[in-house]
């Protein structure tokens, strides 16, 4: 297929935040992008490397181990301003688990230390005592009606801020905090979630939504109906 479009993907800390098959989200983006006539250029942006908001159309930020996340939480402060600029300018971002937590104000790690995020989004994450939310999960997005399947495994409980909407309401499983039935967060073109799987592998429609949002932002004057016509068969 002719590649009509090109999208640049920043794989944020891809060498450190990669615990649950996070690379799969990039592979799946490429898989559907190719069928939509979109070439994906993916680049890992890690410790001591610059993130420039205008260089990227999509960013993917995975989850890591406790130790790696503490290192990332320090480094990401140097990228904070550019990341906030990127988000406020409608840049697309998919954040999983630890990535989700670090976009918010803070999280408390397994040792009880408070680890600062960048506060780009208005959520915060508290610990729960001797418990993790582990298992298969199903949510439904209240706006587009789409259902998303995944697997969650997290100790932190996240509370969303007032400008954030959930990625979905929990039909089966625990979600952000096991109480308010929300799972994940959506703010502008930022999609956050606790889903492994990885999320885009089981939910191709979400991959397509992200690709379309990035295309509309980068190619605002073009007719994207051909890319939009891609049918995504169920993969789960």
């Amino acid at each position, binding site marked *: 297929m002719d590649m009509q479009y090109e999208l640049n993907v920043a794989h944020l800390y891809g*060498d450190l935040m*990669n615990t*649950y098959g996070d690379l*799969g989200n990039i592979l799946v983006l490429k898989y559907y992008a190719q069928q939509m006539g979109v070439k994906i250029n993916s680049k890992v942006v890690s410790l001591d490397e610059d993130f420039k908001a205008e260089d990227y159309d999509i960013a993917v930020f995975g989850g890591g181990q*406790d130790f790696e996340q503490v290192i990332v939480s320090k480094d990401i402060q140097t990228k904070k301003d550019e990341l906030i600029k990127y988000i406020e300018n409608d840049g697309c971002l998919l954040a999983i688990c630890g990535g989700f937590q670090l976009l918010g104000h803070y999280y408390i790690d397994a040792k009880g230390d408070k680890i600062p995020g960048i506060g780009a989004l208005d959520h915060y994450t508290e610990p729960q005592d001797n418990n993790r939310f582990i298992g298969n999960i199903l949510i439904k997005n209240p706006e587009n009606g789409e259902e998303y399947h995944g*697997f969650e*495994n997290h100790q932190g409980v996240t509370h969303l801020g007032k400008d954030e909407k959930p990625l979905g309401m929990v039909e089966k499983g625990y979600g952000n905090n096991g109480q308010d039935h929300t799972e994940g967060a959506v703010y502008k073109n930022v999609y956050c979630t606790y889903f492994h*799987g990885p999320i885009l*592998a089981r939910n191709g429609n979400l991959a397509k939504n992200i690709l379309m949002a990035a295309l509309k932002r980068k190619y605002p004057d073009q007719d994207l109906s051909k890319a939009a016509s891609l049918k995504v068969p169920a*993969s789960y």
Partner: protein
Amino acid sequence: MSIRSGIASFAGKSSYWFLHTFLHGGSSLPGKITTKIDPNILSHLGKNYDVIVITGTNGKTLTTALTVQVLKQKYSNILTNPSGSNMEQGLVTTFLKAKNPKTGRNLAVLEVDEANVIKLTKYIKPIAFVFTNIFRDQMDRYGEIYTTYQKIIDGVKLAPKATIIANGDAAIFNSVDLPNPKLFYGFQNGDDAQDIKAKPNTDGVLCPNCQNIVHYRYIIYANLGKYFCPNCGFERPKLDFALSKINTLTPESSTFEIDNQKIKIGIGGVYNIYNALAAYSAGKFLGIESNKIAQAFTSNERVFGRQEKINVEGKDVTLILVKNPVGLNQVIDMISSDKDAFSFIGLLNANYADGIDTSWIWDGDFERLPQMNIKKYITGGERYKDITFRLKVAGAPEELHEVEPNLDKVVEKIKTVPTDKVYILATYTAMLKLRSIFANKGYIKGGME
């Protein structure tokens, strides 16, 4: 012997005899009974043994088997444990099953689960620990690599005189300062002029000293290689036992050189060369000569790791257990060395023993499959949808790819594939199910111990 130990030991042995004779089983229950009566039983049972503990994420079973083979060159009676009996109860049972040690020292080579090292060292002070590697492994059950290593270290701290024989290519084994004597083994067969980084989805790449990302002169696989930190100068320790050259690699065997000694092992995969290197190092530690070790590896005794050959109506089937991304990638690497055309079967379950989170398959390098001479792909198992989509994304051609969730039918399909060779990669419970089908049809005898 205290009266309590005596009673405990007697009860354990009787229960082992009963279970073994009438139920054809009994790997952990006798240990459980014995430990219940006398929690300190291991100090009694192990007191006449020099113990070598083998631990780490991958390669424990094969390294243990190879080490026993090597040490047989010098020691006539070696106690060892079957795969799967590597936790406290299984270790107790292993000692209970042993013929009463005569006077003098006896040797035990034991595979020990990472978290159970401390349960052994509380009672028995080993003469050596062999560390294979530490990788991410079924995170819903185990946890982070640093936590796993800390568990091993907690156990080692109770035996500060034991020699640590560790994989020098793994930076994590150089991250904690311990008083123990140390010996390192590793690969010394790359190009020292290079400066490379591990692939993005590799774990454990932070410098243990300054937390920057480590670089490598060369990488053997995953995070193993000649690492160095460009930031603080931390680097791989000097190797005491070095693989200098790999000569041939096929799925059936490998030939290579350690300290200029030519060696052949009858099992494929670079990861198994590491296991052989670990066994070689343990042998040298106990004073066995290099040529004797090479002989031990070529002895007729067949060593099975996590792979098994089965003849299914003339098809040459290799069944391989996969359980974590690094192990999976090593298997993919091994089958890539096959020059013949073959069929590829991937079977994915997600029960507790498999790991209930299937996301790890996305760290598997399935993208390499379409470059191999594969004539047929079959995906199946309880989570056939996940593994099917994974292979689709990896580029397995649709016209060669068949989906068959039902394992009975997979076995039927094997007979009709267009190749003589078949590789089956299966997670634990899928492998057990498949083996029982093979056994029912008479393709294999009995179960795995």
